[in-house]
């Protein structure tokens, strides 16, 4: 059973939760930018949350299915159509053999996840299907590609009358600040920059990508020049290169970095950052790690409950 890529869209790629356990070789996790969208799309089609799904960026692909299946779309709202009719998001969606899904364009936000019941087949590289273009692992979809999937064994669900409320899980509002934990080198910023970090209005720069988001706006400076020894960095680490323009590391970030780390974006806000577009505004508000981690665990708990509730409603 297969899915044919009639048009690849701007940047469409396979992702699973990521490539774990190879950091010592300089290999990062990658995985979806909006991890929650990925996990919920899989939940809606009865997959393991780690199953390979498509991450679709700004301009979506056009796909033809050659067999019956069920898909789910989550994340940023796209004006997707299935055989010319609006394709609802945040619910299981039955697909008949021969159908064409045109994912359209993002109406707000930047990234949508598409999961398919049974999961998409993929060639694992170093144990994972996660595309990490920066590391040269995996590749974006191209016109004419064929992705294989496992045919559905259960009968097609009737059109479901429910869908998830996206509000707790999708938020691309650029006016809502992101919570930022002070980084190791925060105190090394000069006084004006320490204040500006939490007061200034930044913008996501045009050359931002899955490796990192460069922030335009206030230039920040250290009180004294500093060249730290390379240390591990994480998704959400806010680095300050010598030019004074902060970089927020994202899914394909290198495992280590040698720039001062002035902040760490709270895990609960990383999906929200992933949905910002180049040009979008960005502000930070301070949170301490204890609170950030408590909220992170609470959110994981809510997500697990939701996943269980979805599983209970699926045939």
């Amino acid at each position, binding site marked *: 059973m297969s899915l044919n890529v009639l048009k690849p869209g701007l940047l469409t790629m396979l992702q699973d939760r990521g490539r774990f356990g190879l950091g*010592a070789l300089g290999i990062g996790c990658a995985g979806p930018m909006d991890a929650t969208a990925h996990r919920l799309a899989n939940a809606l089609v009865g997959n393991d949350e780690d199953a390979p799904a498509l991450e679709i960026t700004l301009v979506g692909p056009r796909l033809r299915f050659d067999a019956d299946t069920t898909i789910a779309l989550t994340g940023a709202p796209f004006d997707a159509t299935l055989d010319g009719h609006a394709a609802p998001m945040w619910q299981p969606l039955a697909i008949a053999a021969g159908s064409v899904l045109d994912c359209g364009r993002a109406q707000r936000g930047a990234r949508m996840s598409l999961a398919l019941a049974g999961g998409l087949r993929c060639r694992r590289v170093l144990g994972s299907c996660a595309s990490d273009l920066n590391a040269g692992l995996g590749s974006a979809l191209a016109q004419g590609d064929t992705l294989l999937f496992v045919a559905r064994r259960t009968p097609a669900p009737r059109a479901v009358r429910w869908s998830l409320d996206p509000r707790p899980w999708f938020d691309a509002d650029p006016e809502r600040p992101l919570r930022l934990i002070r980084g190791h080198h925060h105190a090394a910023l000069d006084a004006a920059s320490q204040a500006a970090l939490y007061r200034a209005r930044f913008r996501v720069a045009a050359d931002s990508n899955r490796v990192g988001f460069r922030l335009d706006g206030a230039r920040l400076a250290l009180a004294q020049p500093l060249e730290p020894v390379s240390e591990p960095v994480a998704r959400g680490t806010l680095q300050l290169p010598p030019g004074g323009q902060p970089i927020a590391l994202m899914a394909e970030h290198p495992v280590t970095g040698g720039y001062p780390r002035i902040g760490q974006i709270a*895990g609960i806000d990383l999906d929200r950052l992933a949905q910002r577009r180049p040009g979008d505004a960005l502000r930070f508000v301070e949170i301490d*790690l204890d609170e950030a981690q408590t909220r992170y665990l609470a959110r994981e708990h809510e997500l697990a409950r939701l996943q269980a509730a979805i599983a209970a409603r699926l045939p």
Partner: protein
Amino acid sequence: MRLATATGIEIEPLGENLLLLRFGTGIDRATNARVHAAAAWLREVEMPGLLDLIPTYATLALHYDATFWAGRDGEPSWRHLAGTLQAVLATPPREATAAGRVIDVPVCYGGEHGIDLAAVATHAALTIEEVVARHSGGDYQVAMLGFAPGFPYLLGLDPALRMPRHAQPRLRVAAGSVAIGGAQTGIYPAELPGGWQLIGRTPLRLFDPARAEPSLLLPGDRVRFRAIDAAEFVRLEQAPA
């Protein structure tokens, strides 16, 4: 927000899923040896809920599952894990005494393969031959892999060969390029952007995701560079891996 162990290791959280164990702040063999010893020890202990261990020059990162380490009465996971680590690391792990692997890395120095070699010689006030002799005569050790898959940061560069990076990084550095960045030397495993001084190139393939062991070099390995000429470079490059 930092804690310390009885043996003077600094424990610092980096976000919700990473804990850094810092053994020092410099680039030196003694500190790096402690990092690798702790990594080996923690692998042996098989701590649960641990997703990855990432050794760097002076720091060992633990990638952990915060859900697994959720503490009692709302204690944040990182504090719970840090407390456990303080106990686990109370006795300093023994440093490896067995000699690590020694990997021979052939390098064609200078020319098109090392376009900054002359500049490094000028900077060091040495002849090109002396730079090659000193660089290929060194006893190096892989302190860490980072920046890109399979990129080794090597300890053991002759201090005379230190040279700052280019102010403006090059957009493309050829795979296999052997380079100097400040007090460090390393090898570009793939075609990458980079600002280090390029002194030569190895025909060896440092990283190949299709290989059973994707990275030629592993943390802790020792490395010896061997100067080769352009003809041998071509011969080795064409030889099957």
